[in-house]
């Protein structure tokens, strides 16, 4: 959604309506506006969350709360994310957004979701959208890789998706012992095992940038055109209004034209170390 720039810089007050413990260092916050309704959003967009007294960071929207609020999944990494992840129900936060470009709807195509680690969070609203309107799509595959079975985000929801007969869900971990009966290996390796029509497929990819590079390589090898591969690019979002330039990626301001970008638009920059 395009916001007038003067409004885009003013946080709106939200309350923590619920805290869902996902992992020992990761929570999902249900944030409810103190007044008025939640603004509309597109899956893949982000909000700027302000932990009062600590600072503000960009966090992708990981779901919605039946039209009333946003879901944000936050991992304790730095000072602000730690402050946000430790908020209690009823605590107040500032919220600006939603900002940026989201995932394409990709209706009529086969859709391959490829998520690594916490990268499942920005993809979750797009996955829910595709599953809610399943007949609008061809084949749907969800490929998810994480570090270890104990670090699996949204495990319960993954199991629900897996029980459906109209979606191909593959989960892999990088490290496991013999008690884990699932797949061990990296998520790009799952692409060659997945049945889809590469020329009519759209791939939505989110995870650490190294993982996305390997994934793009596997998608190219499978025959998916670069223009049908979408990546969520993570950079240092500050103003989120295209003013400060902290999120600059070559000629792009990712807070405006991203974070979701078609790969053909950024291919020449993707492996450039200085950018």
């Amino acid at each position, binding site marked *: 959604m395009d916001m007038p720039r003067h409004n885009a810089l003013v946080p709106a007050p939200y309350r923590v309506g619920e805290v869902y413990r996902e992992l020992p260092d990761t929570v999902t916050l249900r944030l409810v506006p103190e007044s008025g309704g939640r603004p509309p959003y597109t899956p893949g967009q982000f909000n700027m969350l302000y932990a009062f007294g600590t600072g503000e960071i960009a966090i992708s929207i990981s779901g919605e709360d039946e039209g009333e609020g946003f879901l944000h999944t936050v991992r304790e990494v730095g000072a602000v994310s730690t402050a946000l992840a430790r908020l209690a129900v009823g605590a107040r936060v500032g919220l600006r957004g939603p900002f940026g470009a989201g995932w394409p709807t990709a209706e009529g195509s086969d859709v391959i979701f490829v998520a690594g680690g916490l990268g499942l969070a920005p993809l979750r609203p797009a996955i829910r959208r595709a599953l809610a309107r399943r007949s609008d799509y061809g084949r749907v595959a969800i490929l998810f890789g994480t*570090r270890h079975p104990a670090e699996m985000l949204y495990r319960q929801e993954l199991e629900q998706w897996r029980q459906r007969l109209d979606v191909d869900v593959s989960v892999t971990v990088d490290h*496991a*012992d013999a008690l884990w009966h699932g797949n*061990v290996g990296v998520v790009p*390796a799952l692409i060659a095992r997945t049945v889809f029509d590469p020329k009519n497929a759209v791939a939505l990819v989110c995870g650490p940038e190294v993982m996305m590079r390997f994934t793009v390589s596997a998608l190219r090898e499978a025959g998916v055109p670069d223009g049908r591969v979408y990546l969520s690019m993570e950079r240092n979002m500050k103003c989120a209004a295209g003013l400060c330039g902290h999120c600059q990626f070559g000629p792009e301001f990712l807070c405006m034209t991203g974070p979701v970008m078609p790969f053909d638009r950024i291919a020449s920059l993707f492996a450039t170390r200085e950018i």
Partner: protein
Amino acid sequence: MKDLESILREIPFFAGLDDKHVRLIAGCARNCRFETGEYLFHEGDPASEFFLIRQGTVALDVVAPGRQPIVFSTLAQGEVVGASWLVSPYRWMFDARATTPTHALGIDAGCLRRKCEEDHDFGYLMMKRFLPVFVKRLHATRLQMFDVYRKN
């Protein structure tokens, strides 16, 4: 019942091989089946036979004293199990264990190596098939080692 040549032609790994080469490989191949938990081979054993999975999944693991075996890769339908048969001293460096009922083609490694030596064109053709598989696994292993999902 299908003969080995027909089965080989259905495996994508061997797609496009001419009849003569399919016959050469079939002469070294056998059908085999492993139950869940059964080992295809163990670390340290002679790498005398490698496998192509027709159906099922196989975990590759290493054993460390006092710990559960560490699984570092799971292989599925169409994938090759084992690389140590290609390089001296031809001994397995890890265990391979079926994690579901698994149908595979077992290829006698000594037999295939001998045929590659006798017919270098065939040997080169085989190398061109196997090398990309192993290079991709090397890349995947590097990605695993980067531990990209760890907290910075």
